[in-house]
């Protein structure tokens, strides 16, 4: 008998030590531990959730459909080249996901389908309408999501956030978690910007250009677009330049007629950085330099368009449209516009990290400021201490010495719970703290059930030792059943819950599971120890 008790004490002691080792990184003691310890022993511990340390949780949807549209347009462009090279006669137009070829002939079809087997005809007749096959569209979307993930990761790296979490969710969603971030709004803008940089030739030669109003007030853009929709040449479009008056802050939009087809795009960029204007204005601008291919193309484009204006377009907004005074070699250019130093820095970041393959849409944004997190932790601590004290005192008042034993098991329970969470590197959230506190209340339930059973046995005249043993045996299944039902719901919460709720499920289920051990092994061991010492006549229960 005695030996078995010893072994159980060793078991309890060992688990306690283990829990302490795992939890140590969360205490100040970890810092004063010797080197060999910090290097070889667990060093992560429990991490705080975004709701406790502050930060943002964002979910973006990659609009894969747009990526397919972009590809469709690109294919249409290249088909035009193919057709003209083969000296065939057909007009190719693309709209949305469809490419229309008019007229259609066997020869034209063959030329198209040989070059682009991914195109599937949806309508045949005098004209033929193609769309990208479902399989290929799915691949493009998937690819877009992958690329978007990579680009967003690059941007965040350059923005500089400690320990970001960025991952894909489902087919087209990207989850970004940035703990402890100071300027959430700026981060959201950097991540969400498509940053499609294009250089487009301004079509001042067209007669329509002269008719377009010089400026438009914000909000009037659509009216202008509508008015000229029919008039402008087919390969032109109207884009707006945004001008902010630096003194008054008044925003003006300047409509400019540009060629639809970009002369050059941002994917040929090598570098982007912020410079302060040397002209004395002190305004920041972003200098960009192209890679070799880009530099060559830039050289050609500028050479061919001297005296024309070149619009620098980011996400369909013109930043500036300077005149090309002479051919520009070397592949350097600058983007100036009415932006602040911070905006210029962010622009450089997104340009360097590259454009998103398709626009992203924010689906969810949960931002928690650092002060709310601190308040929550303080409140959680307070509630935990008071809740525990109430339970501890109640157990001692009601069950006397046995209550003390139950409280010992409760302490064991809390330490093991923290140790277990640390060993799993679990994330502690505010609902998670609530889970711990609830688990404290539930932990003593097992002891209550046992003690009441033991009281039953004592009432019918059994000796303390027999009463304890049979009380334990009889209460076991009741305790087991009640724990399992709680575990079922915790498991469901874990499966279906998001961030903070998952944290709750983790602490509650661990707390309840550990309770089976502390209540059944912990308390029983102490009872056995007391009862094995001498012939106990009366049990303090």
């Amino acid at each position, binding site marked *: 008998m005695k030996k078995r008790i010893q072994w159980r004490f060793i078991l309890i002691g060992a688990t306690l030590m283990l829990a302490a080792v795992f939890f140590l990184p969360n205490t100040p003691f970890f810092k004063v531990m010797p080197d060999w310890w910090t290097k070889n022993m667990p060093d992560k511990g429990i991490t705080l959730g975004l709701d406790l340390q502050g930060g943002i949780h964002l979910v973006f*949807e990659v609009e894969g459909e747009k990526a397919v549209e972009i590809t469709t347009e690109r294919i249409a462009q290249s088909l035009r080249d193919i057709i003209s090279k083969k000296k065939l006669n057909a007009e190719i137009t693309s709209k949305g996901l469809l490419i229309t070829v008019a007229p259609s002939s066997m020869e034209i079809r063959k030329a198209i389908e040989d070059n682009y087997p991914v195109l599937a005809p949806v309508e045949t007749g005098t004209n033929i309408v193609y769309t990208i096959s479902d399989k290929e569209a799915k691949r493009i979307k998937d690819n877009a999501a992958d690329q978007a993930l990579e680009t967003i990761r690059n941007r965040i790296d350059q923005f500089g956030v400690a320990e970001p979490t960025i991952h894909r969710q489902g087919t087209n969603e990207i989850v970004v978690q940035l703990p402890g971030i100071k300027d959430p709004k700026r981060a959201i803008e950097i991540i969400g910007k498509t940053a499609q940089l294009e250089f487009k030739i301004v079509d001042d030669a067209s007669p329509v250009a002269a008719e377009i109003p010089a400026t438009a007030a914000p909000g009037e853009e659509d009216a202008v677009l509508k008015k000229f929709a029919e008039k402008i040449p087919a390969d032109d479009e109207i884009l707006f330049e945004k001008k902010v008056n630096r003194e008054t802050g008044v925003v003006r939009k300047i409509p400019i007629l540009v060629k639809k087809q970009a002369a050059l795009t941002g994917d040929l960029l090598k570098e982007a950085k912020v410079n302060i204007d040397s002209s004395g204005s002190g305004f920041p601008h972003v200098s960009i330099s192209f890679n070799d291919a880009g530099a060559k193309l830039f050289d050609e484009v500028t050479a061919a368009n001297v005296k024309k204006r070149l619009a620098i377009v980011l996400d369909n907004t013109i930043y500036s449209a300077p005149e090309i005074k002479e051919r520009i070699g070397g592949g350097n250019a600058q983007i100036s516009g009415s932006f602040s130093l911070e905006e210029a820095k962010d622009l450089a970041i997104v340009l360097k990290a590259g454009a998103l393959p398709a626009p992203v849409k924010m*689906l969810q944004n949960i931002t928690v400021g650092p002060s709310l997190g601190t308040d*929550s932790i303080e409140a959680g601590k307070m509630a935990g201490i008071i*809740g525990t004290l*109430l339970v501890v005192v*109640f157990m001692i008042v009601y069950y006397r010495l046995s209550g003390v034993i139950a409280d010992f098991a409760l302490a064991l329970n809390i330490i093991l719970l923290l140790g277990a969470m640390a060993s799993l590197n679990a994330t502690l959230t505010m609902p998670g703290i609530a889970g711990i506190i609830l688990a404290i209340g539930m932990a003593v339930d097992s002891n209550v059930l046992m003690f009441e059973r033991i*009281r039953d046995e004592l009432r019918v005249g059994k000796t303390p030792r027999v009463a304890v043993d049979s009380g334990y045996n009889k209460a076991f299944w009741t305790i087991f059943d009640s724990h399992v*039902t709680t575990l079922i719901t915790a498991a469901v919460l874990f499966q279906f819950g998001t961030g903070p709720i998952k944290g*709750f499920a983790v602490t509650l289920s661990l707390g309840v599971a550990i309770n089976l051990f502390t209540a059944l092994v912990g308390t029983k061991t102490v009872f056995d120890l007391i009862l094995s010492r001498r012939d106990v006549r009366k049990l303090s229960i």
Partner: protein
Amino acid sequence: MLELIKNTKIDFMGKKKIAFIFSGIISIIGIIAIIQIATGKANLGIDFAGGTSIQLKFEKPVVLHDVRKALEDGGLKDFDLQDLPSVNKILIRVKKTEQKLGQTSSEVTEILTQKFSGNKYIVDSTTEIGPKVGGKLRADAAMAIGVAVLGILIYVAFRFKFNFGVGATIATFHDVLAVLSVFYLMGHEINLILVTALLTIAGYSLTDTVVVFDRIRENMKVRHKEPLESIMNASINEVLSRTIITSLTVLLTSAALFFFGGEVIHDFALAMIMGVVIGTYSSIFIASPTVLLWGRKKAFARR
């Protein structure tokens, strides 16, 4: 031995009519609440309905009315305000709009920065949920409740005989519906954290029911000549003190959470308090009488 409740001989089963009427009414309200939630008429939280919620902490006390006026003048529509005057906090909720996510929150902060230039504030938290996410969270929550109830039903059916399973499940359903109905009647927000509390209640309220059922099962073995109703009565009386004490300990910690746990967890703690109390009631007044109604003694098993 300190005992709260000693040798009671209360006729619990005799009160089943009153209990059924009371619980029936509260359950019907709960079902109405579910229908209102499903059709989007209940006070759904941002996480389910979509929209924006912003919590601000001001340096100096603010009058709720001033904030409302400032926002209205600024052109904001369809919003709710709530304040926590003791800590100078204001909670602004804007129901779903056609706007792009992110626009509403910057609009609100811009208006307030302008109108309250003498009283600085910090943004405690911003939550913006697009309609798609809201729909998904709603579906997830419904799914979670369904799976949890099914899981409990299967486990109880496995551990007890069928009619006990029915009794336990109905008692569990009843507890969830009752808490929901109170929240609904009080006009509190129905959100993810409440669903979490409801599921926790579902799992926990079974503890008391299991305690009662275990004792009934045990007594049926030794007192098989007696009518079931009196066995049930005796069993409930025997375990009454432990049923109440186990609930009491959880009640103590839930109350600590309610009073000291801060605003984030306030409604959760409130739901837990109600759930624990109602769960204790239902394990005494609903679970066993339901078993009795479902099938007479012959259906009872000895396991």
